[in-house]
């Protein structure tokens, strides 16, 4: 109701007052526009169309730069995909292969007690500060299809500065990740074999 609006904009406010502080006779002019009872439509009809975008060489070049940049970022290692494993059947080797999916770039551990949810945690709780060297990714920037993060390989060096050491050993991830007696490649179930050369269709695959 209009009264509410009148009560707020005008200075004479009372608590929950429902009477107008002015009457239609004292105020000159026409009645105020009818009050709206529902939210405004999502795509209201526009009385005035907006101006067209400025075209021109510069605008097009900027557009091309923007799209190229976005595309390039997708293939860089800083584009982190959530881990999605499309396995049809759960395999025994999954338990030991999970760490292979992630990059072994970080040995940096959280500051507190290791999280209990993950069963991979023999991680030492060390405060570390680090600087990551840029990860070089040579071949991927040329391929347009391969977006999966499993293909990332690159070199990193890192430097650490330790603040507190709680005296737990670091494990060499390659060999001793899961308290197994076998080297990680033992659990390679052969699914990756021959999967890399799908691009050249004219080579016969035996």
């Amino acid at each position, binding site marked *: 109701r209009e009264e509410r609006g009148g009560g707020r904009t005008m200075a004479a406010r009372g608590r929950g007052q429902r009477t107008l502080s002015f009457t239609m006779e*004292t105020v000159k002019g026409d009645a105020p526009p009818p009050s709206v009872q529902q939210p405004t439509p999502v795509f209201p009809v526009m009385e005035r169309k907006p101006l067209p975008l400025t075209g021109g060489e*510069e605008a097009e070049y*900027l557009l091309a730069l923007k799209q190229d940049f976005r595309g390039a970022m997708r293939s860089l290692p*800083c584009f982190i995909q*959530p881990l999605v494993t499309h396995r049809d059947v759960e395999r025994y080797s999954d338990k030991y292969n999970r760490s292979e999916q992630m990059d072994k770039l970080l040995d940096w551990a959280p*500051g507190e007690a290791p999280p209990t949810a993950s069963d991979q945690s023999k991680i030492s709780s060390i*405060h570390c500060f680090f600087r990551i060297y*840029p990860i070089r990714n040579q071949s991927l920037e040329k391929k347009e299809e391969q977006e999966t993060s499993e293909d990332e390989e690159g070199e990193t060096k890192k430097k650490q*500065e330790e603040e507190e050491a709680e005296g737990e050993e670091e494990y060499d991830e390659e060999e001793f990740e899961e308290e197994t007696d076998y080297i990680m490649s033992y659990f390679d179930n052969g699914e990756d074999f021959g999967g890399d050369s799908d691009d050249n269709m004219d080579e016969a695959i035996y």
Partner: protein
Amino acid sequence: MTAQEVRLCGLLLREHFGEVVEKVGTHLLKCGAQNLRTIIHETGLSVDLVKKSLCVLVQHGASTFSSGRKGPGSPTEYHASCDRILRILRYPRYIYTAKTLYGDTGELIIEELLQRGHTTMSSTVKTVADRLTQNMAEGLTMDYSEVSSTFSKLVETHFLQRCPPLPRVGNKDSSAPSETPAAPGTPAAPVNTAPPTPESFPECYKVPSVTLIGRGKRQLASEDGEEQRSAKRAKMDPETHGDEGIYWQVNFERFHLHFRDQTIISAVANKLDQTSSEIVRTMLRMSEVTTSPMATCTKPLSANEIFRSLPPSYNILRPILDQYLTLLVDDPMEFVGKAGESGGGMFVVNLHRALANLARATLESVVQERFGSRSARIFRLLLRKRHLEQKQVEDFAMIPAKEAKDMLYTLLSQNLVQLQEIPKTPDYAPSRTFYLYTVNQLPTARMLLQSCYKTVANLVERRLFETKESKRLLEKSQRIEAILASLQVSGAEPEQLTEVEEMITAPEKQQLDTLRLHINKLDSAENQVDETIFLLESYINSTNASS
């Protein structure tokens, strides 16, 4: 940090770094400084993903870390920076500016640094040389020294700066710092109240002496799997170039100063003429090094100096120059002001005033495009006359009473115009109170800026929606393009190529074209809204600095 800003930051992070980084980034933006454990717990992501996301954010300057609030022993806390993430919108403009100033080499250097966040000079030079070589004619390669010299030029003009060394947190002081060896003593304060700016370190703009000898390598089109596999294997690069640990980043503030100058010059060119804009350009160029970034106006320059520094192609006579300067001073946009009479007249460029006037012109143009030219007339009137009663508005704007009232109420409901009550009696009786309409430029500019952020976020969302709708079709067309490319490389016959091309039907092709058109329009619109964002942000920052 408003809700619109956070929403836009989330979308930008998602597009450039993926959804995982988006989740971590928006969580930090909404909840302030947090330590790692809390982030893991509250986002529900795995430890590794959170660690990686934080690395990415720190690498790109979007996040900083510092010691915890409870003192030296508490875990480190991470903060995300909203402003820094919003800069991503402006990346194409930075790259384009580098191209206009320093050519293709400069363009690629800036692009490389924007993609990687923080890199060393040697790795940037090598990558850029390789990329340039790729595009050059057969047999030509780009020399590293050429790229290095462009890099040095960019550092000299302060477009690039060194990353500040990491804050030393805690009591560990005996171990040798493995950070930037060239940096002077790191700040010793255990709890940083404010992060040191990169410019507070004296070696910020010093180019390290780097031994970089070589030429860019052209990457051969690999035809067999052997080369691919060897390229994929992690290469250990044994060479060191003497600049390990020295990282560089793009200095956005310097680019912003350049954009501001460009905006002023082009505004003068549009309003007056080419010669006036050249004079203003000369004045700004002369004041580049003497003016601090937040100054409201440049240092006074005498007309004699300006005359001597004009570019040789503009040989105008001295009295003509004086006339031009008088014209500039008298212009209502107040770009140039007179600061004294010595030396033939001392002139300054009023930076803050120019920005304020440009922002005002933007606001007026927004009102004009949204509500019509008569509403714009009312708006301009209120800006100039400050406070007016309704009757006065009708009289001054020469608009009939009924329509004027309508327009005023519309502007009022959109919060572009405010109502000020001035009571005659203490009881605020409406019949005995003056109601004055007014426009406040600064709050209105802020409101419009938020509206711009919302606009860009909507544009991005719409673009993602359109892409998602046609995802199947896009994937199909990408696959077909890949097949075509590989067929062409292996030398197939035209019939095979046409056969593959026909796998996309004509209506699908049309759908793809429309989609491409829409996406280009949305992207281009984002770029242009960012220009308005820059102008309004500059005005708001300049006002805050000068008040």
